[in-house]
């Protein structure tokens, strides 16, 4: 019988230490509750992809690749392209990650990244249509977690957004029912730039960008996706704990502030 390897939990006295610090608005790595770890975004890391990006968020490392392929649209949206997001928690990233079909964490990660991009209407999917009902571009966004030190959702979405902004779409037209590529490329029709901000609740304190140890101690987690108009476009709550109304409103306000700064970083990296 096989067993899913479980990561050794953080020592209990260390967990207490993290809780104790959080109650004083402090954190193990010396950050303030509203501080992100250092973010670096590198684009064009994968040569053969249409777009790619590598993001580091402290010790968390993510690689995102975007590939465009021709395919059939969904019957209910015949004149729209297709966006699919997939996330892979590779065994190299953490001792508890294994090969095989994606687990619930990998699925949640892909879904939240997808929700941020889709609900903010980041890509104008109508422009990806070549022949209504028959042929459209399918945008595959593949997220690979290379190193796991918490807050995968934020790092992955930043990577996905940067990779999409850098993505080059081949120009083509239909001649006698055949697809003819002109050989030139143009950028994807990006209309919005969603930036999620994740909060973790430890004790009664909300902290931003939790690292792995903080994620272990947190009672609940809330991701708020903010689009370029400072509107909330996506949300996801994880964990068993509860949030009070005033905590959620405070988080939304903080997320709007924080996302502006991070969006600037992503735009700089992708331009």
């Amino acid at each position, binding site marked *: 019988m096989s067993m899913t390897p479980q990561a*050794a939990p953080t*020592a209990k*006295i260390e967990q207490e230490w993290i809780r104790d610090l959080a109650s004083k608005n402090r954190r193990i790595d010396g950050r303030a509750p509203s501080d992100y770890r250092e973010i670096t975004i590198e684009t064009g890391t994968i040569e053969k992809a249409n777009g790619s990006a590598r993001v580091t968020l402290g010790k968390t490392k993510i690689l995102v690749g975007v590939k465009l392929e021709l395919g059939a649209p969904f019957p209910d949206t015949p004149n729209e392209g297709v966006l699919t997001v997939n996330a892979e928690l590779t065994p190299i990233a953490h001792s508890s990650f294994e090969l095989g079909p994606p687990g619930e964490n990998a699925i949640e990660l892909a879904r939240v990244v997808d929700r941020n991009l889709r609900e903010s209407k980041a890509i104008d999917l109508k422009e990806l249509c070549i022949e209504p009902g028959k042929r459209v571009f399918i945008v595959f966004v593949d997220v690979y977690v290379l190193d796991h030190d918490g807050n995968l959702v934020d790092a992955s979405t930043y990577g996905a957004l940067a990779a999409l902004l850098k993505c080059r779409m081949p120009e083509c037209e239909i001649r006698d029912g055949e697809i003819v590529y002109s050989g030139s490329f143009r950028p994807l029709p990006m209309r919005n730039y969603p930036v999620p901000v994740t909060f973790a609740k430890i004790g009664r304190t909300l902290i931003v960008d939790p690292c792995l140890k903080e994620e272990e101690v947190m009672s609940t987690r809330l991701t708020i996706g903010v689009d370029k108009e400072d509107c909330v476009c996506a949300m996801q709550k994880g964990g068993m704990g509860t949030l009070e109304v005033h905590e959620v409103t405070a988080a939304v306000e903080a997320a709007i502030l924080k996302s502006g700064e991070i969006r600037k970083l992503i735009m700089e990296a992708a331009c």
Partner: protein
Amino acid sequence: MTLHVEKRQIVTPGELLAQGDYYPDLNTFREGDSIYSTIMGIFDHRGNRLSVVPLKHCYIPFVDDLVIGKIVDVGMSGWMVDINSPYPALLPATEVMGRQHLPRGDGGRILEVGDLVKAKVIAADRTRDPLLTIRDRGLGKISRGRVLKISPSKIPRLIGKDGSMINMLKKESSCSLNVGQNGVVLVTCETPEKEELVIDVIKVIEREAHTQGLADRVLELMKSRIRGEGNAEGT
């Protein structure tokens, strides 16, 4: 009989150390007449015994080592302990309460997953997982203090010659310090501020382990920090 490298010279894996009638000790191997290094490290020899001290290494348990480990699993007849090593260690029930099996469902009550223990290695060969004991004075469950991990190769520097460095730290900070050979250090002080101070100093020692005159600089740093804290409390 020829030595090809000098004492304290840095050698690389596969480098020829000597030829002739030498005995290969730690991190070296013999092939025919020649002895080679298996790792990158500093060459050393005593008489005709050749060894290489690694520059960087993970913890390999040896009998009688004092280690600080974390309980990761409760089994039928003991606990699995993470000792910061490639080998998980076993802490058998017999070494904790003198019976073969844990009382049904009660194993977790004595030591739970996530607890830290100070233990001693009683058996370690590479064919089986190392065994630990907590039956000795000063060993057992750790209930307070803070732990930090440093590279196991820096542990000798943290202890110093005949414990000079660690004793100086203890004396200056009046904290209790437990150094596991596996690179885990437990710091227990009266106040969290002091624990933080000692941890900062240990990190300095780790970072500057290779430099000369470290002890003096550490003493200086400790004194200035303690003075600083005293002033902060006074104002």
